[in-house]
């Protein structure tokens, strides 16, 4: 699966796109924890992160289907 990162968290990760394996029954939170395991510096972003699966906002207990795109969305500030 593909994880997309934006703005502050992308800058901190040094990456805008990370490919990760996904297991059957994975939730957004499970994928996030797998990602953070290798990148502990990103944990400070978690309290304000929002998530989108295939471009729909979801909560972190939502399922992540195989082949999905998960976006880690810092608080937005457009306009």
């Amino acid at each position, binding site marked *: 699966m593909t994880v997309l990162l934006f703005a502050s968290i992308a800058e901190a990760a040094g990456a805008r796109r990370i490919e990760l394996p996904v297991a059957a029954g994975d939730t957004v939170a499970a994928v996030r924890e797998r990602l953070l395991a290798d990148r502990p510096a990103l944990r400070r972003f978690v309290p304000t992160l929002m998530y989108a699966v295939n*471009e729909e906002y979801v909560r972190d207990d939502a399922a992540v289907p195989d082949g999905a795109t998960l976006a880690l969305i810092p608080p937005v500030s457009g306009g």
Partner: protein
Amino acid sequence: MLVRVTADELRADEAIAAVASPAAGAIDLFLGVVRDNNLGRRVGHLVYEAYPSMAEKVMAEIGAEAKERFGLEACAILHRTGRLEIGETSLLIAISSAHRASAFEGGRWLVDTIKKKVPVWKKEVWEDGEAWIEGPESLGMQQAPAGLTG
């Protein structure tokens, strides 16, 4: 409905033309513009980043909800990305309506809702540093830099 995330300059005339309707008596346009200061800091320029495909999808949903909620004739939402100088337009919305009350109310609601929901982020760049400005509207927090650098 015209919705667009683009690195190109936003043009008011295009947005006005996009919402033209013989039944419209009022058109409200709102431009979000880069200003030279924020919370006492002197701003040099801004950089906007978006999740473009999702941003356009969310903008279309918000536009459809605004039409329904305020009985609008049409609306258009455009957001610019990349580096923007002071005075340049980052957000452009246009809405047309039979009457002015719904044009103003719909415009206000659209801008408020775009700022809460559309996946776009801005970075302030000052003479001596920069910071992503995250969350002022989506979290209902005071507007404050997420992490200062430089």
